[in-house]
């Protein structure tokens, strides 16, 4: 099981026959997956205890892969449980034009190049992603809203929104140029947005409704040999609602049955309005820092264990937020296309809102996931 190690994916993308697929004919192939899980969590935030569980099909995806020699295209149709943006349907839809020198121009809706972890469960080493704190943040928000006088009014941000600021959008719309060699990868993308602000256009709006934006994403990686790869990239968004940027870098080292990874994210968001509890609303920059450390060991041909530590820290307008996550996961492949994942994660939150609020808490998550790919 592989993650979206940039080098690996980029280099594999250089060979047209490297994707798993069911070939219908020379021009059309299919691939996809079905991801389902059971999870239970027990949270204790500022003395308030809660527990919950879920059992569901998390995501279903079918990719249509078209091949017309120099022109290839891909359309990903998906269902994703809990998609609050209601973007089920077309996850990706893009066309690639391979130039004579092997470089590729991509246009349409496609995945961001940034980030160590894959956007799909087929590329992960665990059930959860490193920076997903939605469960504990949801409980924290509920707690904050319950405080007398607390009200995150319209147009302001709650703690979940601040966390979103550290992660770029998984899928964007635009035009991308990529160059891949045996040991290097470079890509640059001009797109409608990078952080979910004012999407579906490329600037050009003179209205006062602050709905104009465009973004540039740049990424590069190099295989240094002996299993060591280095990736660095950034996303820069120019939006009427405030400029945002993120620098992402990670290193992977693979030796024998071991894979190690270390990643760091540094972000800055401008003019974010924050109102927590009864504090006066403030507007200012939000600085974010995130990192992960991961080790994966394949102890047999079909099984591996993974340990991961990840963290997010924010310094917002009057609000300091720190999140930690400790994860242990076990993967067992029942076959080449059927995987059983079990995971235990402990999440920790510390929220300090200028003396008005200083609380901490934790959340214990246990999950079993069954993943079928084709």
């Amino acid at each position, binding site marked *: *099981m*592989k993650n979206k190690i940039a080098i690996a994916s980029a280099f*594999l993308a250089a*060979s047209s*026959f*490297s*994707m*798993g*697929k*069911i*070939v219908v004919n020379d021009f059309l192939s299919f*691939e996809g997956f079905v991801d389902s899980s059971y999870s239970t969590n027990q949270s204790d935030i500022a003395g308030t205890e809660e527990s919950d569980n879920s059992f569901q099909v998390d995501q279903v995806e079918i990719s249509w892969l078209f091949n017309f020699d120099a022109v290839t295209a891909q359309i990903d149709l998906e269902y994703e449980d809990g998609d609050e943006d209601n973007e089920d349907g077309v996850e990706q839809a893009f066309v690639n034009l391979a130039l004579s020198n092997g470089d590729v121009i991509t246009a349409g809706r496609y995945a961001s190049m940034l980030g160590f972890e894959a956007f799909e469960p*087929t590329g992960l080493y665990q059930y959860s992603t490193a920076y997903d704190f939605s469960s504990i943040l949801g409980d924290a928000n509920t707690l904050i809203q319950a405080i007398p006088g607390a009200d995150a009014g319209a147009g302001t941000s709650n703690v979940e929104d601040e966390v979103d600021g550290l992660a770029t959008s998984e899928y964007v719309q635009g035009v991308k140029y990529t160059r891949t060699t045996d040991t290097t990868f470079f890509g640059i993308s001009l797109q409608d947005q990078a952080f979910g602000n004012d999407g579906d256009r490329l600037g050009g709006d003179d209205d006062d409704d602050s709905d104009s934006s465009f973004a540039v994403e740049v990424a590069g990686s190099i295989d240094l040999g002996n299993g060591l790869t280095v990736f660095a990239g950034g996303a820069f968004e120019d939006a009427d609602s405030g400029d945002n940027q993120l620098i992402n870098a990670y290193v992977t080292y693979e030796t024998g*049955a071991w894979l190690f990874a270390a990643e760091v994210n540094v972000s800055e968001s401008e003019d974010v309005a924050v109102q927590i509890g009864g504090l006066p609303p403030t507007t200012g920059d939000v600085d974010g820092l995130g990192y992960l450390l991961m080790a*994966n060991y*394949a102890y*047999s*041909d*079909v*099984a*591996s264990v993974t340990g991961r530590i990840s963290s997010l820290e924010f310094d917002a307008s009057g609000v300091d937020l720190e999140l930690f996550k400790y994860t242990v996961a076990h*993967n067992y*492949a029942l*076959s*080449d*296309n*059927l*995987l059983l994942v079990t995971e235990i994660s402990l999440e920790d939150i510390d929220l300090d809102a200028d003396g008005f609020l200083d609380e901490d808490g934790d959340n214990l998550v246990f999950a079993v996931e069954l*993943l079928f*790919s*084709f």
Partner: protein
Amino acid sequence: MRITSPKVWAVALVATVLSTPIYAADADATADRMAQLEARLIAMEARLAEAEAGPQAASNVSEARMVELETRLAEAEQETKEVKALAATGGNVSQASILGNAATFDILANSAWRNLRWTQAEQWEGVRPGVSMAAVVEALGHPPRSVDSLKPRVDEVFYYETSIRDDGNSLRGKISFRKGKVLTVQKPNFKANKAAQ
């Protein structure tokens, strides 16, 4: 003019008679082409053997020239196989087909060969652990099915199958890859399949 049954039969008879020499000419052309290719192949093999023989010869022949000769030899071998495949099936196909064009048959035979060459046992001889993915595709063609493996030490698996339902007569081959190189090979059981037939 009314189209009546006797007229239709008459036209069909005339068309059959007229087209017979064309098919015969196609068969002759195929045989000639195969003979020419085999002669070229023999000549190239002789030149390659001469180039590879002895230190003196090796010193006179550059590495690039050797590579070029080997490439040309491989291409010639491939072309000869395709023509043989065409010759083996071409006669029956051409007479039974409504297409009736030598070039079309040539394309169809070439295409069939490229897509199904993995069903020939000798094509698997060079597929072994350590061989590159590109070499596998060159030898066997693109797989009808492949999957990005969920096993930790396997990147991708190629499945070469005639059928996954028919246990008796199906051919099944499976190749797993790690970092673009063959990890394991499960060749189709050609002997059992032949016996079953």
